[in-house]
């Protein structure tokens, strides 16, 4: 099988997967109680049958379910993610509007966790059994086990309220109208707490994985051989152990990268970060079907896309995969 056949096969499977996800999402959302018209009318505190009927008509909820499904799928085939009547905007515009903030947050958290996690894991493995290993392992366990919202709130109280060194919520200083570098720095200050909070969980994952992987590789025959040949210990760790041990971490990073666009519901909510996670959460509690389906679709498309990319990279990196592809 050549590369083109491999790629087209993967893409076809990807499209079918997306179609299945889209249909499943459609029915899952409608299985939940309430609908967008009922929620909107209910929030007004003065709904009546006429208003409900007007809203249902506007939202297209009076159409038979299969007609609604067909309209939805037809739109998606032309990359039209629909229209949010609640927010009076096309779904694609809403998603694209939130995308930069989400990518900034999840991207920063991704980098922090990858760099910090692998470094911590490598250090712990290098000093296995010593106090620094115990400290890193304990820290990783704490990062992994502590609820995100609690870390988020405590960090706000300590660093924003008590120490006053960073802002507690938001994407930038509202009303300051900074531009250029000043704006970038301002956004950076706002990014510190949410990115660290979100990054801690993955830092723990990477650290634990890197440590375990390095200790496993450290006992492998080729490492013993390298040592027997007289290669210096730092070089053994760096060139032979770390390089081989990082492969599972790369796999995990690939999975995490696929979720970057999905946003981080909890972190974005507690830090008032205007990203896709909040858009999705708000749409969920408001039963804003079109927005919810749109966010789900974009997120799942990213996961499918990254999976295809990972497959492709593996295939190029490891010729053995070709036979089984």
């Amino acid at each position, binding site marked *: 099988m050549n590369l083109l056949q491999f790629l087209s096969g993967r893409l076809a499977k990807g499209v079918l997967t997306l179609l299945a996800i889209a249909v499943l999402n459609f029915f899952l959302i409608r299985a939940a109680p309430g609908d967008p018209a009922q929620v909107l009318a209910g929030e007004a505190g003065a709904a*009546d049958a006429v208003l409900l009927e007007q809203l249902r008509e506007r939202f297209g909820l009076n159409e038979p379910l299969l007609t609604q499904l067909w309209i939805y799928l037809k739109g998606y085939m032309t990359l039209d993610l629909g229209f949010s009547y609640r927010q009076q905007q096309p779904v694609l515009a809403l998603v694209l509007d*939130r995308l930069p903030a989400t990518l900034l947050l999840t991207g920063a958290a991704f980098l922090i966790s990858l760099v910090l996690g692998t470094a911590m894991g490598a250090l712990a493995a290098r000093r296995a059994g010593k106090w620094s290993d115990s400290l890193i392992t304990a820290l990783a366990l704490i990062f992994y086990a502590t609820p995100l919202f609690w870390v988020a709130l405590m960090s706000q109280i300590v660093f924003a309220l008590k120490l006053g060194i960073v802002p507690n919520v938001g994407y930038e200083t509202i009303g300051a109208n900074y531009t250029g570098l000043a704006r970038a720095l301002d956004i950076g200050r706002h990014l510190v707490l949410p990115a660290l909070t979100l990054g801690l969980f993955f830092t723990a994952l990477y650290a634990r994985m890197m440590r375990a992987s390095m200790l496993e590789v450290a006992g492998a025959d080729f490492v013993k051989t390298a040592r027997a040949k007289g290669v210096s210990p730092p070089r053994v760790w760096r060139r032979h152990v770390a390089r081989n041990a990082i492969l599972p971490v790369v796999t995990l990073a690939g999975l995490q990268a696929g979720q970057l666009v999905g946003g981080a519901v909890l972190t974005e909510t507690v830090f008032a970060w205007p990203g896709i996670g909040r858009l999705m959460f708000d749409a969920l509690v408001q039963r804003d079907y079109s927005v919810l389906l749109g966010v789900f679709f974009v997120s799942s498309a990213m996961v499918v896309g990254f999976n295809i990319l990972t497959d492709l990279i593996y295939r190029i990196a490891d010729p053995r995969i070709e036979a089984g592809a």
Partner: protein
Amino acid sequence: MTSTIRRRLARTTAICALGLAALGFAPLSVSAQAPKTGGTVHVVVQPEPPMLMQGLNQNGPTNMVAGNIYESLLRYDEKLQPQPSLAKSWEISPDAKVYTFKLQEGVKWHDGKPFTADDVVFSLDKFHREVHPRWRPVVSAQVEKIEKVDDLTVRITLKQPFGPMITTQEVASAPMIPKHIYDGTDYRANPANNTPIGTGPFKLKEWKKGAYIHLVKNEDYWAKGKPALDEIYWQIIPDAAARAVAYETGKVDVLTGGSVDVYDVQRLAKLPNSCMTTKGWEMFAPHAWLTVNIAKGGPLANKQFRQGLMYAIDREFGKDVVWDGLGKLPTGPISSKTKFYSADVPKYTYDVAKAKELIKASGYKGEPLKILALPYGEVWSRWAESIKQNFADAGVNVSIETTDVPGWTQKASNGDFDLTFNFLYQLGDPAIGVARNYISTNIVKGNPFGNQGAYVNPEVDKLFADAAVAPNDAARQELYTKVQQVLAEDLPVLWLLEMEFPTIYRCNIKNLVTTAIGVNDGFRDATKD
């Protein structure tokens, strides 16, 4: 009341209005000091409004922001007395059937077009008649015609005297809509819904979804010298604890009612340069209760059982502990802040022995019951827990059912509950905000804010119907007193609390709350030192 008294009252109202208008149409209490001008205020709004076109959406957050963009004919003081707004004066005919509103001169929409009587007629007779769930029933049942007399005069003729009419012109209930933008269009699809055009003191500059709504001063505002503030940023911060920290760190200046957890209120109010007021909710007078689903029959349909439940609830505990002292115990369906309230009704104090006695006498056999909790946060969950314990103490087998907001809306709308928490605004007059929960004609599916317990009492129906059209306030009071007595005896719902939602703000912001709807139209008069 005789027609002579009616005439005198009408004349007095008109004279008052004219007199107030002559004072420069700023009759609501404002500071005597020279007004400061300029300044920016950061305010919390939560959750994010779905839209700002107030004619099409009356959600709480929408009203909070859009009430400073749109205006109505009248505003209301804390005693719910009408005050001039876009109407500088008004007259009520001696037979109380004709309302004539004189409009302010020189009022412009935010796009520069003049505001005239045509806009008023369009708004009240066409736009709201079609889309507004509060105005529609009023106009269809009570109004004979709405007509333009001249460019600055509008006349509303009623089919019969309708006392609540003068209370219906609050900005969320009857905002003025620009005819030149909406007439002849599909209202809900009009692109202008994203760029609201009102006559109000502030204009929409930018809405950064998920982050903030930026309003700026309307330089052409008709009330000279107002507004004093240059701009308002309504910040969207979803988490209550984060909102409290944002206030403490100075990121926001005003925490609107209900935007922080109740146990944070007193602490935040005691911070330096921090002030608090419970005023500004008189028009809404939020009233909380447990709706009893009488339609389900069994013990719930038994009056003695419901009375037993009422005696079983430690309402003081709910107020003092769960709500941290915010609010007041209600005596019946009408809030003490609303017109025609009467305390002359059967009273229920916490008495477990009496509760047990009544529940036993009702023939209750331990049938399991569920309380549908209101999914509005921790405090409501705790309230459900405490009442569950109260009921258990009185021998009632009860459990708590939880769901999310759409789930609650659907269950409450469709009568799919035994007992459910609910709270509603009273909207200034029992005919508008109270009767809807008890009259048999409002037992409808799809609306969680009607008579969802399916209580039917022809006497109550008649009392509410007669009171709405009674010729004068004394006659209305008599009828409403009677209906409060009947309902307090029957207990179709178990009233729990007259709720309070304090506004917490920096003390250097003055005149923030000057009307019965508080910050919803308060920034017109606010200044910042």
